[in-house]
């Protein structure tokens, strides 16, 4: 759009004077006294304003995250303990089995020795009687 026209518009739209006596008219219409000023707003730091606005949701979110992390940790510890218990029980069973096999082996040796040793001769019995 042409600059000429915009300038023409500016000239045409120069502010006009208010009617004579306008200031007096306004002053007469003023109320006797102004409303008291609003209570001064305590200057808050941005962090304080954020806390006031988002404090409760943030606390909920933090509590939720914390409980998830804590739950995970407890589950890990319990799992580890159960694994250790299972491993100890397995070792004990293995030891008992080994001991049982050892005892059995000894008994078998004794039995084999007993079988292998020749019986005493029959004359010995007669001489004694």
């Amino acid at each position, binding site marked *: *759009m*042409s600059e*000429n*026209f*915009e300038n*023409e*518009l*500016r*000239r*045409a*739209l*120069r*502010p*006009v*004077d*208010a*009617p004579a006596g*306008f*200031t007096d*008219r*306004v*002053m007469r*219409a*003023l*109320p006797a*006294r*102004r*409303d008291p*000023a*609003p209570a001064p707003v305590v200057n808050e730091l941005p962090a304080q304003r954020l806390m006031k606005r988002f404090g409760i949701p943030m606390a909920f979110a933090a509590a939720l995250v914390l409980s998830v992390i804590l739950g995970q940790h407890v589950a890990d510890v319990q799992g580890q303990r159960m694994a250790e218990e299972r491993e100890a029980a397995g070792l004990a069973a293995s030891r008992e089995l080994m001991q049982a096999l050892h005892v059995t082996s000894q008994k078998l040796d004794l039995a084999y020795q007993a079988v292998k040793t020749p019986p005493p001769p029959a004359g010995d019995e007669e001489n004694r009687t």
Partner: protein
Amino acid sequence: MADALLVRARAGDPDAFAELVRTHQGSVFSIGYRMLNRRDAAEDLAQDVFLQLYRKLDHIESLEHLGFWLRRVAANLAIDWIRRLPHTSTQPLDEGAAVEAPHREEDPFMSRELERLLGELSPSARAVMLLRYQEDLDVADVGAALDMPVNTVKSHIKRSLTQLRSRMIGAKLVSAEELS
């Protein structure tokens, strides 16, 4: 310091407040007059604006803020009045009640016609044009004053200029060459 006037007015000094009114009454009255097209309505509107100012003085931060605040309130109040009382926007400018515009050197007939054609724009477009060309606010400030996006302000200005220009040419008030 100019802001001392504001401090005195806040403290309840009537002379200081009267000085603030005198300084800005032309601007506020002009917005009302060209928005409402009636001198009496413009006076009522301007008085209403200054009464609001009196109540809100504690919220005004500086004289610069004061000027912006007054223009914003005047323009929005005028739009509100037009919407509530639609006839105010369609009436011609008061005949025989010409207001004084100091130091005019241009063709008074042309100015009168431009004001009349301005009155045919929608209230929002008229407010945009007045704040832009009468009050010389930049586009961003016009948007801030009317709670309007900058792009909307720009499109109002473009459409209104085209409309005004074609009406002026159509009415043979000017030739296309003069406005080019």
